[in-house]
C-alpha cells in the first residue's frame, strides 16, 4: 500500500457526464425517493404494542396469582359472547397497511424532506403570512393541562382553559377596538361565515329580510363570495380604482334597501390600505347595511390601527397568520371574529363569561335563553380551536403591546424594501401611489414573449425559495404578491431580492431554460391537467388491480 503524500482527492465532479446518470435507487444522495405506504406496509405489521387481555398480562392487579375481575372480564369467553355487544356487525377486511416504529419514522422523515417550509427559508406567500412559528408556543400547547383536557369536562375542572379563552379574547378586543369577540370559528373562512351570519341575524331581528345582497370588491379572496353564497346571500362585485383601492363612488351608487352590507379586506389584497375605509363604513351604515372586514391582513396594522376606529362591524382574525400559530401544511387555522356593539348580541354559542369572583363559566345550550337570547346558534361542536388559542396567547404575551407594534412596523418595512429594491426590474402597478403595507404586488408586464409569472415562480424554486403567491389578486395581470413578514433578516431579504431579480432578468431576456424550471426540485413540473381529467384520489387495493 502506498501513502498518498500529496493529499489529493477528487474535489470537482468528473467532467464525463456522470452527474446525469440514473442511479440504481432513483435517489440523488440526500434527495431521497419514498414509496407509498401501501407499497411498503402490510396489514399484519404494527408499530404499537397492546396489553394482553389475558388475566396474567396487562392490568390485572391481583397479587399472589389471584385473578382480578378485570382480567377475567376482559378475556373473551370461548364463545365470544361477552365481547359481542356489536350487534353482529363485525368488521370485514379493511386493507390498512401498518409499519413498525422505525419504518414509520423513516417514511415520514423522508417525506418531510420533500417539503419547503419557513424553517428552511423565506416563504413569501402573499396573503398567507408565513412567519416564524415560535417553539415556545408548541411547548405550552402540549402542557397536559391544555392538551389532555376534554371539552365536556365539568366547568370546575376547566377554569384554566376558560381563562385562556377569556384572556385572549380581551387582547383581541383591545387590539381591534371592538366590543366583543366570537372565539368559536375554526379558520378564516369559518370566521367570515360567523360575521356574515351575525349580520344576517341582526337584519332579521330588524325585520329587514329583503336585504339579500352583499357587495364584495373584485380583489377579494375567493372565500368572501363563497362565504356570502354559503350563507344564502347573492354577491355583486365592486370595481377597483386605477390605484388598486375600492371605488367609493361606485360603492355609494350601489347602496340601497336590498344591500345587507359589504365585505372589504383591509389592508387589501393589493397590499394597500383602504384610505376611504371610514367613509365606506359611514356610507354603508347610512344606507342601513353592515361592514364586514376580512382581517386576513391584520398583521400589517396590529398594534398601530384599531379596526373599531374605522367603523367596522365584524372582522375575523386568522390566528395562524397574525399570531404565528403554525400553518401545518394546510391548517388547522383559527378565526375568532371581533364584533361591534350592534352585532355582538347575535354572536354564536358557546362563549366564556366571567363571574365577579373571577371564576369563569361557559354560556352554551342550557343557559343561552337567559344570557344570550339573540345568538344565531352554534357553528361547531365544542368551543373552537383551543390548541391555537394557547399558541396565539403565548405569542401575544411574548410580544406585548410594544412588540406587536414593532411586528407590524417591521412587516411593512420589509415589504416596502422588497418593493423598492425590485421595481426597476419588475412592474409594480401600484407603486407610484405610495408605500405598500405588508406585501408588495408585481405584474408580469415586460416579460419576453411567451414568458409568464409561472416561469418566474418555478425559477425561484431552483434558487431555493418558495415562490410568492401567483395569479392573485385577479385585478392585476400575472400577479405576484410577495409577503416577507417581519421575521426575515435583512441578509435573508437581500438574498431573496437577488434571486428574484436574477430570475426576472432571465424572463425578460427570454432564457428558455426558465420554461422548464424547476430543474433541481424533487419533481419537475407536474401534469395537473391529467390529474383532473382522470382523477386518482386513492390507492386502490392490490386485489382490484389484479382484476
Amino acid at each position: 500500500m502506498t501513502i498518498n503524500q500529496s493529499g489529493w482527492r477528487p474535489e470537482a465532479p468528473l467532467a464525463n457526464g456522470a452527474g446525469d446518470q440514473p442511479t440504481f435507487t432513483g435517489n440523488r444522495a440526500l434527495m431521497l425517493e419514498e414509496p407509498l405506504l401501501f407499497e411498503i406496509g402490510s396489514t399484519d405489521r404494527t408499530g404499537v404494542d397492546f396489553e394482553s387481555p389475558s388475566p396474567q398480562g396487562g392490568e390485572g392487579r391481583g397479587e399472589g396469582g389471584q385473578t382480578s375481575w378485570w382480567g377475567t372480564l376482559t378475556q373473551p369467553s370461548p364463545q365470544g359472547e361477552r365481547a359481542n355487544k356489536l350487534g353482529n356487525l363485525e368488521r370485514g377486511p379493511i386493507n390498512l397497511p401498518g409499519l413498525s416504529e422505525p419504518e414509520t419514522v423513516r417514511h415520514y422523515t423522508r417525506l418531510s424532506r420533500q417539503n419547503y417550509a419557513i424553517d428552511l427559508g423565506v416563504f413569501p406567500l402573499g396573503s398567507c403570512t408565513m412567519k416564524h412559528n415560535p417553539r415556545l408556543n408548541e411547548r405550552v400547547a402540549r402542557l397536559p393541562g391544555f392538551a389532555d383536557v376534554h371539552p365536556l369536562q365539568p366547568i370546575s375542572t376547566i377554569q384554566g382553559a376558560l381563562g385562556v379563552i377569556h384572556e385572549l379574547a380581551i387582547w383581541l378586543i383591545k387590539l381591534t377596538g371592538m366590543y366583543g369577540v366570537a372565539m368559536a370559528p375554526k379558520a378564516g373562512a369559518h370566521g367570515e361565515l360567523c360575521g356574515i351570519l351575525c349580520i344576517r341575524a341582526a337584519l332579521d331581528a330588524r325585520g329587514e329580510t329583503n336585504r339579500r345582497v352583499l357587495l364584495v370588491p373584485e380583489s377579494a379572496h375567493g372565500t368572501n363570495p363563497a362565504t356570502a353564497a354559503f350563507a344564502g346571500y347573492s354577491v355583486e362585485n365592486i370595481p377597483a380604482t386605477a390605484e388598486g383601492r375600492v371605488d367609493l363612488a361606485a360603492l355609494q351608487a350601489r347602496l340601497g334597501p336590498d344591500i345587507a352590507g359589504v365585505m372589504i379586506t383591509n389592508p387589501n389584497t393589493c397590499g394597500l390600505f383602504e384610505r376611504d375605509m371610514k367613509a365606506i363604513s359611514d356610507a354603508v351604515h347610512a344606507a342601513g347595511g353592515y361592514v364586514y372586514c376580512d382581517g386576513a391582513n391584520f398583521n400589517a396594522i396590529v398594534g398601530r390601527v384599531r379596526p373599531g376606529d374605522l367603523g367596522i362591524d365584524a372582522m375575523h382574525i386568522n390566528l395562524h397568520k397574525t399570531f404565528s400559530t403554525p400553518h401545518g401544511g394546510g391548517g388547522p387555522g383559527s378565526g375568532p371574529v371581533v364584533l361591534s356593539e350592534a352585532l355582538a348580541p347575535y354572536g354564536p354559542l358557546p362563549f366564556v363569561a366571567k363571574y365577579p369572583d373571577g371564576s369563569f363559566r361557559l354560556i352554551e345550550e342550557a343557559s343561552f335563553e337567559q344570557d344570550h337570547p339573540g345568538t344565531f346558534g352554534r357553528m361547531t361542536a365544542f368551543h373552537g380551536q383551543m390548541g391555537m388559542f394557547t399558541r396565539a396567547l403565548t405569542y401575544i404575551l411574548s410580544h406585548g403591546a410594544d412588540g406587536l407594534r414593532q411586528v407590524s412596523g417591521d412587516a411593512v418595512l420589509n415589504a416596502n424594501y422588497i418593493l423598492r429594491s425590485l421595481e426597476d426590474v419588475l412592474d409594480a402597478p401600484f407603486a407610484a401611489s405610495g408605500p405598500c403595507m405588508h406585501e408588495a404586488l408585481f405584474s408580469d408586464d415586460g416579460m419576453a414573449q411567451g414568458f409568464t409569472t409561472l416561469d418566474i415562480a418555478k425559477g425561484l424554486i431552483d434558487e431555493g425559495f418558495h415562490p410568492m403567491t401567483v395569479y392573485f389578486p385577479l385585478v392585476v395581470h400575472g400577479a405576484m404578491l410577495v409577503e416577507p413578514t417581519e421575521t426575515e433578516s435583512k441578509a435573508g431579504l437581500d438574498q431573496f431580492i437577488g434571486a428574484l431579480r436574477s430570475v426576472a432578468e432571465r424572463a425578460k431576456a427570454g432564457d428558455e431554460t426558465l420554461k422548464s424550471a424547476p430543474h433541481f426540485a424533487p419533481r419537475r413540473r407536474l401534469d395537473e391537467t391529467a390529474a383532473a381529467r382522470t382523477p386518482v384520489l386513492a390507492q386502490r387495493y392490490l386485489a382490484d388491480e389484479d382484476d
Partner: protein
Amino acid sequence: MRYLPLSDADRSEMLATIGAASIDDLFVDVPAAARLSGPVPGLPMHMTEMAVERHMGALAKRNTAAGDAAFFIGAGAYRHHVPSSVDHLIQRGEFLTAYTPYQPEIAQGTLQVLFEFQTQVARLFGCDVANASMYDGSTACWEAIGMARRITRRTKAILSAGLHPHYVSVCQTMAKFTGDTLDIALPTLEQGKPGDDMARLLAAIDDQTSCVVVQNPNIMGHVADLSELAEACHAKGALLITVVTEPVSLGAIKSPGEMGADIVVGEGQSIGVGLQFGGPYLGLFATRDKYVRQMPGRLCGQTVDADGKRGFVLTLSTREQHIRREKATSNICTNSGLCALAFSIHMTLLGEKGLRELAAINHAKAVAAAEVLSKVPGVELLNHTFFNEFTLKLSKRSRSLVRDLADRNVLAGVALGRLYKDGDGRENGLIVAVTETTTEEHVETLASALKEALA
C-alpha cells in the same frame, strides 16, 4: 425582541433605500385620526420566554388533566393513547411550518401524506374516495347535507335522534340561512332503543328527502345495522349520510360504506390528535366515486411530472372557492392538515392489525366496565349494543352528580342534561366512555363513587 431579526441599523439602512424617514411614515395611507402614536393602551408590554411559560403554566394547572383523574368522558371526543413518534414527527419543521401545497414540486411530502391519508380514510369508512380533511366532524356533517342537496336537488334532511346534539345544532344554525328543512327528534331514555329511532327515520323518508343523517355508534353508544335504512333511502332517491365520531370503532364494526352509506363523515380526533379541549380536530369526509365532483374541500390526486415520475398535486380545484368563488361547493380554504398528518401517522403505526387490537381492547374493557357499573344500585344500563361507550340511567339527576364527582377527581362521563333540555328521562342519563387508557382502578373508583352518590 427574540422573534424579530432586524436591528436598528438594518431598519435605518432599509428606510434609506425606500426613501422614508421612519416606519411610521410607511403608514401614511392610514387616516391620521386612526393611527395610534404608541402601543395600544391598556395592554401589558413584552415578556421573556421564561415569564410567559410561567404565566401559561399557571393557567394550565387550573385545569384537571384527564390523565390525573378517573376519566370516563366521551360524547364525540375520546381519550386514546397516542404513540410518542406521532407528536415527534408532526413537529418536524418541514411539516409544521409548510402551507397548503400550492407549489407541488416542493411540497411532495405534504401531498403524498394527503394521498395516503385520503386512502386510509376511504378504506376505514368503506368508501371509494375521501378528501384532504375538513375542520371537524360537526362542520363536515353540515357540508355533507349541503352536498346531498346539490346531488338530489332536494332540501329536506332527516336527522337521527342519536346524532350528536352539537352536530344537530350546527345543522340547525346553517339551515336557518340556506332554507333547508330539518326533521329532528330528541333521544329519550324511556324508549331509548335504537329501533324506535330507526322506525321514525324509515317512516319519514319520502320523495322530497335529500338525505338521512345517522350516527353510528350514536350519541348514546348504540350500534345499529344501517343496511335497511340505506335501501329505503335509495328507493326514494335520497342519500344516506353516516356520521362516525369514534373512528376506532371501525376496527370492530362493519363500515358505513359496507352498509350502503353514500357519504360518510366523521371526527378523526380519536386517532393521533388528542383531546385538546375540543380543537383543533379533524373532519373526515368520504363518498362514492360518482359524487366526487360535488364534494367540498381539498383533494390530492396522483399524476406524473415532466420526466414521467409519479407525483401528487391538488386537483379538481374547479369545485373550490379560489377558482369558483360564489359558485364553489364550499367556502372552506384552510383545513386540518397537521391533524390529518397526525391521524395518518398513528394509523400507519397501528395498521389493520393494531387497529383491530385497539378496537377489541376498547370493546372488551367497555363490556367489563358496563357489567360492573350496572350492578351498582340505582344504575341501569340502557344499551343492548355498544362499542366503547354506553348510557346509564341513574336514579338521580346526573348533571349535579357529575359535578359532585368531579370534586372527588372522578370525571364520570357526560350528563345528558349538559347536552339536552330536560324531559323523557334525559336528566337522569349519563354517557360513559371506556378506552384502552381506562384502568380497573378507574372503574372501581367510579363504581364506588356512584354507589355512595346514589345511596
